């Protein structure tokens, strides 16, 4: 547990010392979500209809943007070797890195989302569901993305490969995440989509770090 906290603390501290990287993902999300209402025009009906999809795709791309830097710096400076030799199991340390990634990319996006939802004219209950779906969905994106980041580590042109690998895996999260908001918009029950999203998060949270650790050991060979 102390090794988990050490990795988490170190990654958060590093992020504070180079704020640019964290702000890039958040700023990207804000810009993408702002461009659409400007481009599509002010009809409230249309905007409300496309809001869940756009905000979710924006969050997805923003999360992808910072994935390339998840393991690469540790791989280059040798920290990853030291993590592999730790007394603590590697999946636990990986889970700490993914948690840090979520705290630095997913959580800020989630916190900002109601503000951006205002541009699409969403009402308060829908905003709440959007917020909730992103709160469950963004850690899921981090866990799935981490596996892709670990698999493409040390590969030439890995960044492009990473998006090709990860984006299709994001589809279920996207479908059920924006589906929940859509359901609330059309006055339906959104519990089912939310439960599936939560179930996927549990699965990814359990198996993701373990798969990452295997991929990282191959990268270190």
């Amino acid at each position: 547990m102390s090794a988990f906290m050490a990795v988490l603390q170190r990654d958060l501290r590093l992020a504070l010392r180079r704020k640019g990287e964290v702000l890039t993902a958040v700023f990207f999300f804000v810009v993408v979500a702002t461009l659409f209402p400007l481009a599509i025009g002010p009809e409230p009906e249309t905007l409300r209809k496309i809001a869940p999809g756009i905000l979710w795709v924006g969050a997805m791309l923003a999360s992808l943007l910072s994935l390339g830097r998840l393991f690469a710096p540790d791989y280059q400076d040798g920290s990853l070797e030291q993590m592999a030799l730790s007394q603590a199991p590697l999946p636990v340390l990986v889970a700490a890195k993914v948690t840090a990634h979520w705290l630095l990319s997913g959580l800020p996006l989630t916190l900002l989302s109601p503000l951006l939802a205002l541009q699409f004219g969403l009402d308060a209950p829908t905003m709440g569901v959007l917020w909730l779906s992103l709160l469950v969905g963004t850690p899921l994106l981090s866990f799935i993305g981490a596996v892709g980041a670990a698999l493409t580590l040390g590969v030439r042109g890995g960044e492009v490969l990473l998006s090709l690998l990860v984006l299709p895996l994001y589809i279920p999260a996207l479908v059920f995440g924006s589906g929940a908001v859509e359901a609330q918009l059309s006055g339906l029950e959104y519990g089912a989509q939310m439960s599936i999203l939560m179930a996927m998060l549990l699965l990814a949270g359990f198996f993701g770090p373990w798969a990452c650790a295997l991929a990282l050991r191959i990268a270190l060979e």
Partner: protein
Amino acid sequence: MLSVSNLSCVRADHTLFRGVGFDLAPGDCLHLEGGNGVGKTSLLRILAGFSPAAHGDVRWQGELLGSSACRLSQDLLYLGHQLALKEELNAVENLQASAAIAGTPAAADAALAALQGLGLGSRAALPVRVLSQGQKRRVALARLLLQTPPLWLLDEPFVALDGPAQRWVASLMEAHLARGGIVLFTSHQPVDIGGRSRSYRLGA
């Protein structure tokens, strides 16, 4: 007790070495020698469990490396070419983070004392980014004071160090041997570890 028998290493269809074998008991020190590219680093990485050997056995306390009973990766300190330092963090934060990640957390006082022992006390609060190459190496080597598992695998520990720092590292290794530790290191220069080291030439 570390025993290596008939070890060979193949990289990209090219045999780096074969038939390497030695036994190291507590208090033993082995100086790995050999020209560039004969596989010194590859040998250390095999022992650290990063890459598999093509043939041969590595046993630690009688247990085969790779078996679930083998505790080798918990019992070793590996210092590679890459220093595992974070440029944005200062020396104390780096040391504390690496000690905690290894599973042996160290207090800030202990980390600072280790750095002072290396003559880096006045640089302890600076980001590692601004330190010189030799000073960065000293920060990385300060881990030898904070983490003392039985087996040390040191890849070129003396490179980029000045005379006093080299003697300091040699004395640390001597102290480790005196308390029953095992040291395996690579170096291109002749080093005196209190007369306790024997050398093994790879690729001869």
